[in-house]
C-alpha cells in the first residue's frame, strides 16, 4: 500500500497527504473532529487519549487492546480497526461500560473519562480478568485526579469480561480480518517516509536505500521525540509487519526465544504461565496501554539504564540475537549494552530477539522493581537476581545479580557475585557480600531517588531475595501486596 488506510469507528479512511508522524490523537482532534479522545500529557502517562484497536492475540483470536493514541503514529494502525469513545454510543444507546461509569459516578470533571471508558472497553472484551489485582493492572495507565478511583474500580468490576454479544463483539470476527499492514508511504508535503516492510528482504532493501532510516517497533519511546521534542524523523522503518519477529517460541536446544516485536502484553501472558520472575517485573512495567504497544526489542534497544526487561533477562542468562543481511550473531545480553543508551548494534542491523535458556538446576530467582509510585512509574532501582545453591553443601555455585538504575547501563554486580560464590547461602553471607555493592556501583541522585536510597535498596533487595526464596525458589508476587519484595 502506498497510502495510509485504517478503519476508524467503522469507516475506512484513506489519507494521502499527511505527515506520517502525525499521531492518531492529533488526527482525531485536529482532522477528524472527534474530540472525545483528550490530550493530558502526550507522553503515555495519563491515559486520557486511550483508544481501542482490534489486534490478534498470540492464540490467533482477535481482541481489543487499549492504546495511547498520543504515542500512536498513523502508520501504526495501517489496515487496522480503531474505535474511540464516540463510537460506543450506538443508536442512542450507551455501551455497557459507559452506563457502568455513569451509574457508579465514575466521572466528576469527566476529562479522564473517555480514556477510562476505552480502557474499560478492553476489559469488557478480555476473558482473563479474574482477580482484583488484574483489574488494577488493566486500569493503571489511566489517571483520574477527581474521583480517587473507588467508583471506577466498581465500574471495572461490573464490566470486566462481560463481552456483550454486540456490534463490537461481531467486529472481532470470526470472518473479520484486518487489511495488510505493509506500507511504503511518502508524504507529498513533508517528504517524510514511513515503511512497514513485510519481509526481511524488504527490510534490508529499505535500510540499504534509506541511510537516514530509524527503526521503530511499538513507538512508545520513539514517538516521544515527536510529541515532546517536536522532531520530524525523515524516515521510519517499522518492524511490526514482519511476521517472523513477533511472538514467543521454543528455542533450539531448550529455552525460549522472545521475538523482538513481541508486545510486552503478550510476553506477560506467556510469563504468567512460565516465568514468575519475568511476570513479577512485567506486572509493574508501564501500564496496560503501554504494554499493548511496547516491544521486547524496543525496550532493550533503548539501552536505558532503567529499562525493566534487562535486569531480569540478564539474571535469567539471556542472549541477544542480532540480525542483518549478513546473517545472525549472538552475545550475552549484558554485553549488548556497551554504554549509556548505546548498544552493540551495527548500522543496518536489528535486534531479532532474545534467547532465554532453561533455568539451571537448584536456581533461586526473582525480580524486583522499586519506584516512587508503584504503578506506571520508571524504576528507581530494579533487580533481577539468580543464584544456584548446591542442595547438600548449601554453598552458592553461581550468581547472576543484575541491577537497573545503579549505573549507566543495566549491569551485573560482579564483585558482589564473586563474594557470594562459594559461600554458604545464609543471611550473614548475603549481608557480607552485599557490602561489595558499594564497589560495584556508584548510583546517581535524581528525582526518582537519592544515591544513598538507591544503595540501601539495592542491598535490601538482596536481603529480601534471600528471605523470599527460603520457602520458594522461584516466588510469585503475592496479591495484594505492599512492596516489590514482601517478607514478614
Amino acid at each position: 500500500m502506498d497510502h495510509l488506510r485504517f478503519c476508524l469507528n467503522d469507516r475506512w479512511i484513506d489519507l494521502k497527504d499527511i505527515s506520517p508522524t502525525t499521531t492518531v490523537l492529533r488526527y482525531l482532534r485536529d482532522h477528524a473532529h472527534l474530540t472525545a479522545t483528550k490530550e493530558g500529557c502526550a507522553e503515555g502517562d495519563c491515559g486520557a487519549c486511550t483508544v481501542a484497536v482490534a489486534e490478534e492475540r498470540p492464540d490467533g483470536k482477535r481482541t481489543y487492546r487499549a492504546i495511547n493514541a498520543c504515542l500512536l503514529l498513523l502508520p501504526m494502525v495501517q489496515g487496522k480497526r480503531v474505535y474511540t469513545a464516540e463510537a460506543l454510543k450506538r443508536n442512542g444507546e450507551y455501551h455497557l461500560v459507559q452506563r457502568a461509569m455513569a451509574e457508579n459516578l465514575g466521572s466528576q470533571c469527566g476529562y479522564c473519562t473517555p480514556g477510562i471508558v476505552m480502557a474499560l472497553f478492553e476489559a469488557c472484551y478480555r476473558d482473563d480478568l479474574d482477580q482484583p489485582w488484574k483489574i488494577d493492572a488493566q486500569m493503571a495507565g489511566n489517571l483520574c485526579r477527581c474521583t480517587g478511583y473507588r467508583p471506577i474500580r466498581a465500574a471495572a468490576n461490573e464490566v470486566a469480561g462481560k463481552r456483550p454479544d454486540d456490534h463490537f463483539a461481531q467486529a472481532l470476527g470470526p470472518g473479520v480480518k484486518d487489511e495488510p499492514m505493509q506500507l511504503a508511504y511518502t508524504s507529498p508535503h513533508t517528504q517524510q517516509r514511513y515503511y512497514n516492510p513485510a519481509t526481511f528482504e524488504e527490510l534490508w532493501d529499505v535500510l540499504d536505500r534509506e541511510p537516514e532510516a530509524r527503526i521503530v517497533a511499538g513507538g512508545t519511546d520513539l514517538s516521544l521525540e515527536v510529541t515532546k521534542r517536536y522532531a520530524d524523523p525523515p524516515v521510519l522503518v517499522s518492524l511490526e509487519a514482519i511476521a517472523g519477529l513477533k511472538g514467543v517460541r521454543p528455542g533450539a536446544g531448550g529455552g525460549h526465544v522472545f521475538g523482538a516485536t513481541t508486545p510486552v502484553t503478550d510476553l506477560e501472558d506467556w510469563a504468567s504461565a512460565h516465568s514468575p520472575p519475568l511476570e513479577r517485573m512485567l506486572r509493574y512495567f508501564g501500564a496496560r496501554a503501554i504494554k499493548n504497544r511496547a516491544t521486547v526489542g524496543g525496550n532493550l534497544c533503548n539501552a536505558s539504564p532503567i529499562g525493566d526487561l534487562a535486569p531480569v533477562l540478564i539474571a535469567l542468562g539471556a542472549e541477544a540475537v542480532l540480525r542483518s543481511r549478513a546473517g545472525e550473531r549472538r552475545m550475552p545480553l549484558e554485553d549488548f549494552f556497551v554504554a549509556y543508551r548505546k548498544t552493540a548494534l551495527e548500522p543496518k542491523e536489528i535486534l531479532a530477539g532474545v534467547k532465554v535458556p532453561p533455568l539451571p538446576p537448584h536456581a533461586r530467582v526473582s525480580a524486583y522493581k522499586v519506584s516512587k509510585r508503584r504503578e506506571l512509574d520508571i524504576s528507581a532501582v530494579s533487580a533481577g537476581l539468580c543464584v544456584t545453591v548446591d542442595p547438600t553443601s548449601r554453598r552458592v555455585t553461581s550468581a547472576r545479580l543484575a541491577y537497573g538504575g545503579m549505573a549507566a547501563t543495566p549491569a551485573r554486580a560482579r564483585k558482589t557475585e564473586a563474594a557470594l560464590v562459594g559461600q554458604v547461602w545464609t543471611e550473614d553471607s548475603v549481608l557480607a557480600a552485599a557490602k561489595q555493592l558499594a564497589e560495584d556501583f556508584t548510583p546517581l541522585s535524581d528525582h526518582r531517588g537519592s544515591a544513598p536510597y538507591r544503595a540501601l535498596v539495592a542491598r535490601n533487595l538482596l536481603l529480601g531475595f534471600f528471605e523470599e526464596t527460603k520457602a520458594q525458589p522461584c516466588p510469585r508476587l503475592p496479591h495484594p501486596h505492599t512492596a516489590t519484595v514482601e517478607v514478614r
Partner: protein
Amino acid sequence: MRKPRELEPPSTPPPSALTEVRVSPLHQPALHESGLRHTSGEALYVDDLPHPPGMLVAWLVTSPHAHARITKLDTTKAKAVPGVHAVLTHAEVLGLNNVGPVVHDEELFASTEVHFHGQTVACVLAESYRAAREAAARVEVAYEPLPAILTIEEAIRAGSFLGDAHVMRRGDVKAALAAAPVRVSGTVDNGAQDHFYLETQVSLAVPEEGGAVRIHSSTQHPSEVQAIVAHVLGVGRQRITVEVPRMGGGFGGKETQAAGFAAMAALGACVTGRPVKVWLNRDRDMMTTGKRHPFHSRFDAGFDEDGRLLALDVDIYANGGFSTDLTGAILDRALFHLDNAYFIPALEFRGRACRTNLPSNTAFRGFGGPQGMLVIEEALNRAAERLGLDPAEVRRRNFYGAAPRNRTPYDQEVKFEDNRLLRLFDEVMKSAEYARRREAIAAFNASSKYQKRGLAFQPVKFGISFTTSHLNQAGALVNVYADGTVQLSHGGTEMGQGLHTKMLAVCAHALGVRTSAIRVMNTATDKVPNTSATAASSGADLNGQAVKAACEQIRERLRPIAARLLHADPDEVIFEDGEVYARGRPSARVPFREVTAQAYLAQVSMSATGYYRTPNIHYDRVAGKGKPFHYFAYGAAVVEVEVSGLTGEHRLKRVDIVHDVGASLVPTIDRGQVEGGFVQGWGWLTCEEVLFDDQGRLRTHSPDTYKIPAFGDAPLDFRVQLLENAAQDDVIHGSKAVGEPPLMLAIGAVTALRHAIAAFGPPKHEVQLRIPCTPEAVLFAIEHAKRAASR
C-alpha cells in the same frame, strides 16, 4: 447509601424533606448531571469547541532564568515566519500589562525583568503550532542573570516578603510554655503540589463587533477573567463576555491563574482580528503555573502529662513565589487552621509569606488549611509518641468542647450544639473497629520483621466562607419558558465537583419541576455578573441560595395563575414533580407547563434573578479576631497502612471516613468529593514531589516525573459514610460544604505511617518522617528508628 438514579424524583417521599413538597430530588442520590455525556465525548470542554474559521494558535516564549534583566527583545525575525500573524509582548498590550488579581504585581508579559523560570515574555500567534513554535525559536531575547531567591530560608534571610505579618494571640504563651510539664518543638515542612487537572489551561477568544470579545475559558472565576481582560485591553467590562462550559478539573489552579492565558487570547483576538486559542501543553502548564504553597513552620508546644495542649507557639512561612496572587488569603487560612479540631488555651501564631523566584503559588483545595493543620498534627503525634499514648486518644482529649474550651485562636465560637467532633469520633472509631484493629496490628508487628502496619485516627474541622468577607455573595438567573421548561444560570462553575447537579436539585425543588425539564447553562458573565470564584468549598452554599431565591420569585408569580387553574386559594397551591395541586387534593393536578402557558398569556414575567450574601461574617486582621466563618465542616477518618522495611514502599489497606456534610443536597455527589479529596490529599502527603533544581528550574513538569495517585493507590478497602441527622441551620437546605475538608483527612495516613515506622524503633520512639512520605522518606525514617532501637 442507596443506588443513585437518573435525576428524576423518587416515587416515595424523601425522609428528610424540609418543606411540604414530598416528591423532590433534594437529598436524594443522583448521577452526575453530565455523567453519561462524559463517557461519550458529548461533554464539551473549551479545547473541544469547533474551531472558528481563521483561528490562530499560540506558543509561549518563556524565561530560561529564575531572575534576570531583559536586555533585548526583538520579534522581527519571528514575525517573518510564514503563517505567523502576531507576536505579543508587553509592547502590544493595549491597556494595563498586569494580571495580578489582588495586588497588581504580576505582568502579563515580562517587560524589563523576569522573576521565575518559565515566565512568559512573548506569545506567538500563528496558523499552526508548527509555525508558532518555529517563530518562538526566533524571538530574540537577551538576559542578564540576577541573583535568585528560591527557598523560604533564603527569602527570610533576604527579608523578601509579600504583604504583612498576620498574628493571633491568646494568653501568655511564654509563661504557659515554661510551665508545661511536656515540651515538644520542631519544624514542619511541606512541599508544593501541582494541581494536575487533567485538562490544562485553555482559553479561546473570539472577536465580536464593536471591539468586543467573547472568551471561552477554563476558569473557576469568569468575572475576574472578565475584569482582568478588560484591564489588559483598556476597555469597559461590558465589552468582555466570559463563558465557561465546564472544566476538566480545577482544584484551585484555575481560580486566578486562568486569567493571564485568557488575556493573551483576548489581546491576540483584538490585535489580529481573528479567533485565538491559547492552550498549554502539560509541560508548559506545569512550568508556568503556580502550585500549592510549600510552607516551613517552627513550633513549640506545651502539653500536660495526659497529652492535653497547654500552649502553642508557631511561626509559619509560606513560599508565595514571585507575586502575591492569593497568597495573603492562603496564609490567613493556614493560620485559621493551625488549631484544626483542638482547643489551645494559650497561643501565639505568626505568619509571613515569602517572595521567591518561583511560579506564583496559588489556591489549591484546602487553601492553606492543610499546611496549617500539619503543624498541630505533628505536635500531637510527637507528644503522643513521647508519652506513649494512643494518638487517637490524645486527639480526642484536645477536641473543642463546652465553654471555655470553645473559642478558636481568632476568637470565633465553636458552637457546642454544632460541634460534631465527638459524634464523629465515636462513630468512626466504632465502625472502623479501631481498638480491635490496633491490638491486631500490635500482634502483627511483633511477629513480622520486615513489614509493619499502622493505624490512625484523623479529625478535621474546616471553616466555611471566603475569609475576605465581601466575596461571600452569589447570583443566579432563571428563565422559565412558556412550555414549562427551564434554563438555569448561576454564578458557579462546574469543574467536576457536581455543583450543577446540586443546583438542578435546588431548582427542581423550588419550582416543583422534574430535573429533566431544566437545563443548566454554561456559566457566563452576561447571564450573572460580578460573581465570586467557585472556590472555598462555597459553590453550593452561595449559588444554591441565589438559585433558590430566583426560583421562588417565579414560583410565587405563578402561584395565582395555578390557583386559578385549580380553583383553589393561592396559599394552598403545591408545586411538585412537574405539576401543581391544591393541598389536600393531590388527585386533581394540572401540569406545570399549563401554568406557564397561562402565565405567558396573562403577561407574567417568568424570568428572575436571585442574589445571596452570607450574613454576619467579619474579621479584623490587625487584631487577629472576628467571625470569619459562617460555620465549620467536620469529618473524621481511620486509616490503616502497611510499610515495607526493605524498600519503604507502603500501601493504604483500609480507610474509614465519616463526614459531616449536613443534610446532603445530593449524597452520591458528596461521597465522590470525600473520596476524591482524600486520595488527592494522600497524593500530596506521600507521592507527589515538586522538585526544582538549584537554578529554579522545575524538574518534575510532566506525569513522567510527577506522580499523582494511580489506580492501585486507592485504598483497597474504602468505606465512606455521611453523618446522619446532621442538618445545619442557615445553610441551603441544611447542607454543608464538602469540596475541601476531606482532603485533610489524608493527614491520618501520615500518622498511620508513623505508627508503622515506630514499630521498627524502641518504645516511645519519636518518628522523624519528612513530607511527602515517599518510599525513600519512609525507608530513611525506618532506618532512623532502627538505629534508635539498637542504641
